[in-house]
């Protein structure tokens, strides 16, 4: 078993990984300067057309139900705020680095973003766009661990399959922490919004967060529904038990839940179309 403190230190150094595009590092540094205006950040992002296209594609897909509503980075920054765009940017570029090997995880994450937004809209509790970003990034720890420990992570996923185990239980054996903890360390280093960090950290145990209980509860429920529907692949096929508080908060009847699955099915079909279309 690896030492948790060492894993943490390595996870927190993920920003030093050479494969993270320079433009992203520049943008994240710029955003950290209090004097940087949103217009300057938009300009920096827009200086990389490929990145701009990818970010807009994901924003429109996960946030606006696949109707292309946001046409420019500037518009995204105005509508969603700099922190949310920054979180998206980081998430998109992390997944981009891994695209070939983690297509299943990307689909699972897009599914979770879509369903989290759907749940937030149903409950009207908070900004559905925030639910979407939190859903999109909830498993970022898996990406980080597989960047920093490629061999070990591959073995962990294989072991979960062979031994029919929940992946987080195997992660504990190998890394002495789960992807949820690793993802939160990572997100914290990048100073992502608190609700994103807490949703990542507590998406298996939403009762653990004090600062973002609604976000974490929503992402927890979305993650489980998406796993139940077998959307993408998140490392193991098993649906964990939904937390009591999450169940009570949404309070769906069996019939309502059936209708919810129908809505999820529609949304997932659109994700399939989206993933099959190289550029939209």
């Amino acid at each position, binding site marked *: 078993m690896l030492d948790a403190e060492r894993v943490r230190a390595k996870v927190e150094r993920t920003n030093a990984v050479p494969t993270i595009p320079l433009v992203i590092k520049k943008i994240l540094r710029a955003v950290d300067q209090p004097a940087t205006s949103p217009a300057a950040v938009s300009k920096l992002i827009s200086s990389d057309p490929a990145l701009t296209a990818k970010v807009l594609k994901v924003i429109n897909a996960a946030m*606006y*139900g*696949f*109707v*292309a*509503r946001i*046409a420019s980075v500037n518009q995204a920054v105005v509508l969603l705020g700099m922190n949310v765009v920054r979180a998206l940017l980081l998430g998109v570029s992390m997944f981009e680095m891994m695209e070939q090997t983690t297509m299943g995880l990307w689909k699972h994450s897009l599914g979770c973003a879509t369903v989290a937004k759907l749940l937030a809209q149903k409950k009207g509790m908070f900004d559905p766009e925030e639910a979407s970003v939190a859903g999109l990034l909830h498993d970022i720890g898996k990406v980080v661990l597989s960047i920093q420990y490629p061999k070990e992570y591959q073995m962990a996923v294989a072991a979960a399959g062979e031994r029919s185990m*929940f992946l987080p239980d195997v992660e504990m054996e190998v890394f002495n922490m789960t992807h949820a903890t690793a993802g939160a360390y990572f997100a914290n280093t990048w100073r992502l919004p608190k609700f994103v960090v807490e949703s990542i950290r507590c998406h298996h145990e939403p009762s653990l967060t004090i600062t973002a209980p609604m976000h974490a509860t929503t992402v927890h429920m979305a993650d*489980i*529904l998406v*796993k*139940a*529907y*077998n959307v993408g692949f998140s490392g193991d*096929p*098993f*649906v*964990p*038990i*939904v937390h*009591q508080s999450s*169940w009570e908060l949404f309070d769906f009847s*069996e*019939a309502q*839940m*059936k209708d*919810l*699955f*129908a809505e999820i*099915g*529609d949304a997932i*079909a*659109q994700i*399939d*179309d989206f993933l099959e279309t190289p550029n939209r």
Partner: protein
Amino acid sequence: MLKMSVESVWPGAVLAKPIVNDAGISLIAAGVEVTGSLKEKLASMGVTEIFIAGKRVPDIPKEEFLAKVDVSFSKTEEDPRMAVMKRALLAHVEELY
């Protein structure tokens, strides 16, 4: 709901989502029938794909879908909450096919 290219939409199909411009303003409402003249109008607006009301046929056979659901819930279906969720999902699968 189905996403289709404008040209392949059949006569009598109904928009499942509104057509919006870049600013998010709805130009054509959901529920409107897609007629020949509407198709021409959409083409002139540069709209190539639209959402149509209807049922999508899943791309895997029912047996395969059900088998996957069984695996997903195999560790937790004893839990009363998860039993409700599984029943709801199975009822949805029945409606899909």
